[in-house]
């Protein structure tokens, strides 16, 4: 595939902390880590998804004015950013693995009509649903 969405970014409160979380606790790889003064372009990638990068960005000057950056930090910390979905083969196994690594789960795995989902947050407050699709979902 040569066309499509390449990068979607999250706002995080601390890029080092976010990097540790997404790499060490979730198993992502670093794709790009480029600094320019205070600015750091940091993206990570799911090992099974080489065409997509998840950006871990700081809301900060000079890209944003300080008041806007502060407002965004508050919004992220309140968990008010849009939903994120991580698709997994086995939700319960991933839950056990991630919980052992210290991931903050907001919802234990729950069965819903054959699919299983759990909820967790990154250290900044971004909320993820982790979903194991229904076995027969491939036909949809």
């Amino acid at each position: 595939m040569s066309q499509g969405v390449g990068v979607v970014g999250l706002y995080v409160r601390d890029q080092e902390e976010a990097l540790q979380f997404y790499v060490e606790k979730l198993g992502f790889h670093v794709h790009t880590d480029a600094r320019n003064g205070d600015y750091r372009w940091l993206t990570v990638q799911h090992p099974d998804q080489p065409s997509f990068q998840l950006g871990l960005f700081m809301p900060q000057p000079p890209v944003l004015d300080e008041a806007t950056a502060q407002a965004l930090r508050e919004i992220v910390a309140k968990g008010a950013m849009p939903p994120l979905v991580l698709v997994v083969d086995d939700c319960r196994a991933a839950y056990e693995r991630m919980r052992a690594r210290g991931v903050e789960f907001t919802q234990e795995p729950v069965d819903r009509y054959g699919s299983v989902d759990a909820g967790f947050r990154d250290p900044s407050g971004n909320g993820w649903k982790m979903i194991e699709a229904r076995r027969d979902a491939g036909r949809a």
Partner: protein
Amino acid sequence: MGDGALTRTPDRPLTGMGRGNKRGRERIGQPPELLRRLLRAKDRMDAASHEEWPVPRLARVSGVSEAHFARSFKEAFGVPPHRYLLTRRIERAKALLRDTDLPITEIAFQTGWNSLGTFGRTFRDVTGESPGELRAREKAAGHQLEPVPACFLSAAHRPDLKTAVLEKRRQDADGSMSGSQQMEVS
């Protein structure tokens, strides 16, 4: 509107009222670290809304003093913690009414009420219909909502409780507003 219950917090003006007081003052937000910890209390209520969540328990989850918790929570999320919990319980009850055939008594019990009477009264105050009426209506409408993850779907159907339930009862008695509209008016 403009009565004491909703306007007594001077640093959160409602719909433009009191803007003059703020002129020339910096907007002082809450520290993101505090908000992140308050979010933890909200998450815990989300995860177990059927449990009792007295302020000391929530304050402990957030690492905030009991004296400051309720005010900080309301400032962060726009509703007091107990009212937030109420919306979550009603949301769950609505989902159970819609998606299961559990008896209403059982649903009341599962969603954290000790008395069927309180459940039914609160449910009607918040949603404008009784649990039985909602169930009948939802069943008649059928299920068209499958493709959205259930968790997000239920958030979208969360009652928008911006006024206290008692306040709402009083407004109903006054006949000042009608139907579900008033839940959106604050």
